[in-house]
């Protein structure tokens, strides 16, 4: 069951016996590393008493086949044997919105399941889902396979839908974490707070440019898209023009934000202030604290942002640029929202569904100054999506990564500096 993937070669082995007391498991791990391989412990169960044997299932990885073979020979001396491929176990969901007990909980990594004798890719992979498997009708299968597997959210599962239980017959491509680093290797790890920001932003600009050029050149019906997830700090820091510039140049395919970004963007259009602070002078304006409420009220009065633009009420800004350039956007609501604006989707489950729908085809995500939206979107993204997170607070990036969006490249930076530099680079 040896596999070769884009990131290297791997084999899943298992080890049984008194492998803890004998230090065989420790030795096995050490041998893999010493010989230049890597491992992922897929399952380790320790005997409940000293008499009980323990069990370990380990995925052994190496960059070259010869290296993997060398490691496997050594591991077989330690008693490791290759795992036979086993089909997934499918159990019907007991009710709407309820997974079967013991359901396999997904990661955001590329995943395959062994069903009907074939390994098939799990579509719409996102973390914290189950995997539903459907048998296709003869007419639907088109020779591509008799089954279809799809990541499914708890609320969406219907009674009787068959979900994967346990982990046998499921394999996850852990190599993706390394494979997605792209052209920007030196900053692909962790958070950058003490690195030359101008160079880093320049690198991101080059990546975005290359990504868009590639997307434009493709003959695919739905070229890969770039998503921007934005917080209101973009408006507060006076960098809405920079974001508008990116939108107008076609570097933003989709915008995700909350009520606040749109509200303050429109506040600037109508009053020249953001949260009551004059954008021109940087000082609080008399009665400015209620400008955003008045802005919302104006938009609500005419029925929506689009209507306000058509009627000439909103004449510039982020939302204006989106609508004028046919850039898709989604405004998701939250508890503290004022108003909200008519376009804001206040039902979080509905917003989640819409996000998932709009994320199809997204291969690049830039998250700027919004912790909650970044984490929420991160939870929906496959790990193969190139993800950049820019935030003035390092903990936002750390949280995003800790909650499973390991692929993120973080820049600890304020939104204004980032966007202005990015816009300048992309305008050259």
């Amino acid at each position, binding site marked *: 069951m040896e596999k070769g993937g884009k990131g290297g070669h791997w084999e899943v082995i298992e080890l049984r*016996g008194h*492998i803890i007391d*004998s*230090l065989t498991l420790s030795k096995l791990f050490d041998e893999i590393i010493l010989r230049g391989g890597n491992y992922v412990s897929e399952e380790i169960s320790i005997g409940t*008493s000293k*008499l009980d044997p323990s069990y370990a299932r380990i995925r052994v990885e190496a960059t070259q086949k010869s290296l993997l073979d060398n490691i496997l020979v050594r591991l077989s001396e*330690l*008693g490791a*044997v290759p795992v036979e491929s086993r089909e997934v176990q499918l159990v019907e969901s007991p009710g709407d919105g309820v997974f079967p007990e013991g359901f396999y909980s997904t990661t955001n990594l590329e995943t395959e399941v062994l069903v009907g004798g074939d390994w098939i890719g799990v579509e719409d992979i996102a973390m914290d889902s189950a995997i539903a498997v459907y048998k296709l009708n003869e007419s639907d299968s088109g020779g591509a396979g008799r089954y279809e597997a799809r990541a499914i959210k708890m609320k969406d599962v219907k009674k009787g839908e068959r979900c994967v239980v346990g982990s046998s017959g499921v394999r996850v491509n852990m190599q993706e974490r390394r494979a997605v680093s792209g052209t920007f290797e030196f900053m692909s790890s962790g958070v950058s707070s003490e690195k030359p920001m101008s160079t880093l932003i320049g690198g991101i600009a080059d990546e975005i440019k290359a990504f868009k050029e590639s997307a434009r050149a493709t003959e695919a019906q739905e070229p890969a898209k770039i998503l921007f997830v934005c917080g209101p700090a973009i408006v507060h820091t006076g960098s809405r023009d920079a974001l508008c510039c990116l939108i107008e140049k076609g570097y933003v395919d989709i915008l995700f934000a909350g009520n606040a970004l749109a509200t303050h963007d429109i506040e600037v259009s109508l009053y020249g202030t953001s949260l009551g602070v004059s954008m021109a002078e940087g000082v609080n304006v008399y009665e400015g604290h209620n400008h955003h409420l008045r802005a919302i009220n104006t938009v609500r009065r005419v029925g929506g942002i689009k209507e306000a633009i058509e009627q000439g009420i909103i004449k510039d800004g982020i939302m204006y640029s989106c609508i004028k350039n046919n850039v898709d956007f989604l405004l998701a609501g939250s508890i503290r929202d004022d108003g909200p604006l008519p376009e804001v989707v206040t039902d979080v489950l509905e917003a989640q569904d819409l996000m998932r729908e709009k994320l199809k085809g997204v291969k690049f995500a830039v998250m700027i100054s919004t912790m909650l939206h970044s984490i929420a979107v991160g939870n929906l993204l496959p790990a193969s999506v190139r993800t950049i997170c820019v935030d003035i607070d390092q903990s936002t990036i750390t949280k995003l990564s800790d909650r499973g969006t390991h692929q993120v490249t973080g820049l600890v930076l304020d939104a204004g500096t980032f966007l202005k530099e990015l816009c300048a680079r992309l305008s050259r």
Partner: protein
Amino acid sequence: MRVLMCRPDYYTVDYEINPWMHVREKPDQALATVQWQALHDTFTGLGIDVELIEPVKGLPDMVFTANGGLVSGNRFILSLFRHEERQGEAAYFEAWANRSGFETVRLSGDFFFEGEGDVLRLPFVTSSVGETLVAGYRYRSEIRSHNQISELLGVRVVSIELASEHFYHLDTCFCPLNEKAALYYPGAFDDYGKKVLSNIFESLIAIGEQDAKSFCANAVVRGKDVVMNPCSAALKEQLKALGFNTHEVELSEFIKAGGSAKCLVLKLD
């Protein structure tokens, strides 16, 4: 205590399957017989019952009965010899075990297993987990055999990888003395093996290279008596300090085939 031995009637070195064996340095047949008899008599003198298996011409290593199987209660687990030169012995040990009223057990698996040469019982190590076996692997037995032994006997088997081909069976480099102490030759183990042994025994007595080459860890222990090839004065002193009486029996001719006192007996109870 009851053991199985095999007269060295056909004992010689006709092939080389360990670093000690050299076909051009054959043991002195007459001297080997004298040494074997002295060992036999030492055992009987200590009140150990010795049973005999008939030697077979063409199977010179059959004299090393420890490798013929592993006995637990009434079960005789048959060996699966690694080297072709010794594989012929298995049928004779099986026949003997059947004749002697043992239930013979054949391990099922594609691996090698050389009996008590690689599996040492620690009957005196009593704990809540019951009996523990210490088992060696790499040169002659394979670790996968340990799992079957564990399941078969319902005991914990602690596996140790051997690290020197001169000490190819666990009983050539490790000898449990009692519930707290054991002899071992550090040069035959890697750090993992040494750590595992130190987790089991309070007192591990490291023997020197010379004693190791004299097969002093290849000793037979019965109560406070230790039977072995002559060893250093220092080791004898250490054993004495622990209350053991050392009985030295010259076994130079058997060392030429890579075995000594412990290799020449199979424990039957």
